[in-house]
């Protein structure tokens, strides 16, 4: 197994973007914040961390009391932090790509309202969009991105393409009628089935809904190209060596499996994977005393005494150490070349700057 030199990444001036990915509940936001703080404090880089949905106390300690899409300096640290406002980011994209009159129509449409606030994938797309904007502004030495708490870690890579495909898709063009102007033959080919579709949609959803839908679709029409281009541009930035992907996992089967999926997807997409941060790893100060010997010794002492109890504590810890090592091996066996950094389990949850600093030191 290769050790992950986190400082080498954070201190490298050629690296301008660090993307933290992993499944929910593995400490992704905390890791992103700890990496950003270390880059700012130890490497003197002008750093902003883009968080998506931080836990309340961590958000407070980063000074993120408002969801306003503006980087703000963290109290008592040379670091900037911002929290993604998904709806506002979407509104801004619409405003950039369309005339104010048209934008007003779009904002009023119930489909836009539903999509901009709840679409599965909008958050991922908008995180990419915001990243693209921050990068284009060229104000920062380093942008650290925390990815959305998706159903699966892969959503972050898939969702923008899915949204692009959707906004650019055949169905939208059919509904908006642009197919008639742009490609008559395609339209003829599908007219029959499309008639069935629109009849079904009308039956199921009702006429009002269809009117709203086609209103939304024709309003978005002018923005198709813009959406796809931007998504593609950001995707290319992610493939560039200026970006470093950091996988985050905890030594649990689901989290490690997700990390392995993600690693293979990054390989496929030729995206630069810098390493895996394995959070909440347990270690023992007395590893040579294994679980079985400890349990046997506790049994010899008759269980009730102080030493017997301490030996039971050690036994449980050693079992956990062994289990975690096995789980982590599922990743390292498949990706022997991906460097791994282990962060020891902290006795309590991390939600202040001192705690983030301690994690940074553990790297």
């Amino acid at each position: 197994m290769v050790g992950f030199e986190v400082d080498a990444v954070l201190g490298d001036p050629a690296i301008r973007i660090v993307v933290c990915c992993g499944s929910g509940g593995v400490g992704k936001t905390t890791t992103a914040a700890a990496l950003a703080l270390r880059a700012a404090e130890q490497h003197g880089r002008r750093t902003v961390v883009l968080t998506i949905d931080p836990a309340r106390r961590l958000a407070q300690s980063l000074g993120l009391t408002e969801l306003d899409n503006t980087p703000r300096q963290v109290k008592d640290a040379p670091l900037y932090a911002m929290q993604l406002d998904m709806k506002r980011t979407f509104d801004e994209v619409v405003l950039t790509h369309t005339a104010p009159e048209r934008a007003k129509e779009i904002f009023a449409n119930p489909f836009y309202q539903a999509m901009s606030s709840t679409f599965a994938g909008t958050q991922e797309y908008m995180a990419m969009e915001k990243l693209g904007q921050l990068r284009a502004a060229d104000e920062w030495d380093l942008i650290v991105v925390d990815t959305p708490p998706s159903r699966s870690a892969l959503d972050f890579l898939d969702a923008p393409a899915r949204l692009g495909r959707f906004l650019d898709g055949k169905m939208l063009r059919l509904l908006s009628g642009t197919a008639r102007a742009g490609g008559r033959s395609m339209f003829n080919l599908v007219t029959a089935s499309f008639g069935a579709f629109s009849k079904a949609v009308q039956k199921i959803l009702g006429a009002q809904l269809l009117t709203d839908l086609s209103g939304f679709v024709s309003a978005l029409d002018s923005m198709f190209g813009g959406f796809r281009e931007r998504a593609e541009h950001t995707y290319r930035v992610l493939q560039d060596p200026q970006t470093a992907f950091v996988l985050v996992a905890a030594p649990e089967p689901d989290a490690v499996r997700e990390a392995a999926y993600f690693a293979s997807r990054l390989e496929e997409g030729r995206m630069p994977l810098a390493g895996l941060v394995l959070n909440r790893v347990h270690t023992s100060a007395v590893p040579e005393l294994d679980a079985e010997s400890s349990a046997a010794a506790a049994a010899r002492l008759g269980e009730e005494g102080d030493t017997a109890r301490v030996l039971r504590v050690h036994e449980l810890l050693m079992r956990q150490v062994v289990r975690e090592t096995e789980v982590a091996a599922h990743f390292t066996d498949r990706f022997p070349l991906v460097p791994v950094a282990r962060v020891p389990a902290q006795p309590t949850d991390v939600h202040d700057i001192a705690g983030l600093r301690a994690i940074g030191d553990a790297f």
Partner: protein
Amino acid sequence: MSWPARLHVVTGKGGVGKTTVAAALALALAAGGNRVLLVEVEGRQGLAQLFDLEPLPYAERRLGDIDDDLRLLAVDPEEALLEYLDLFYKMGRAGRVLRKLGAIDFATTIAPGLRDILLTGKVKEATTRTDEAGRRLYHAVVLDAPPTGRIGRFLNVTAEAARLAKLGPIKSQSEGVAALLRSPMTSVHLVTLLEEMPVQETTDALAELTALHIPVGKIIVNAARPPLLSSRVTQAELKRGLAEAGLPTDRRTVTGLQSEAHAHLARQELEQQLRAELAHLKRPTVELPLLSDGVDLPGLQHLAALLRPR
């Protein structure tokens, strides 16, 4: 332990072991010959991984490794939409054409509410399904649900539908689901660990679901460890005990074990505080032990025995 509802929705923060707990609960409810359906809706194939099976199809399959009648189902929104179209509009072949056109992807993409209505609609259908004699096919349905961060939106289907469909079958479909979810037939169980963030999310989810009038059942503390120590232990005492047990008594061993004991004690105190916070929520609470050898079928059956209805 009593589990009065028929539809058990299991949620919790990501990483707390929702799927494990949902599976253990389904096994517990199936004990004694009851037919139980365990459903997942997030397309993660978490049940297949848990039971070490090939990816599940969109069909209710009986789990083969046990005597009890537990069936597994992974609901896919596209399949659910096709089934729905077929059921109400007899669109068998047309449905497949629509899929080729990308229409299904389109419909479930444009309206995330629609996706959730289809998923919850399928769960409702299974929960209320009857045989020729009018008896319920399933004694209970257990849903491995989306995490607490999304559970309110997922279960609040009428609000989502109302934003999009003011009339029509989607609206009546969602009203049927909403009525079931707000009835005593349903119970949402919140899974947590004795850690700060999951406990916080449990508190938040309870408030959100209560405001939505969706009945919350139990709080299930997963992976709990027994408190082993009652007080700090001195090095002298430890040294004496180790000697008696025939173990090394060098300084490194003694201080090492002592520091492990103190870390355990600190953790134990934090866990006690979190237990007290959970007790404030005034919901029936169950603790399930950490499976120290990992989650496998015997482990799940051990947890199920602790949840079994009495």
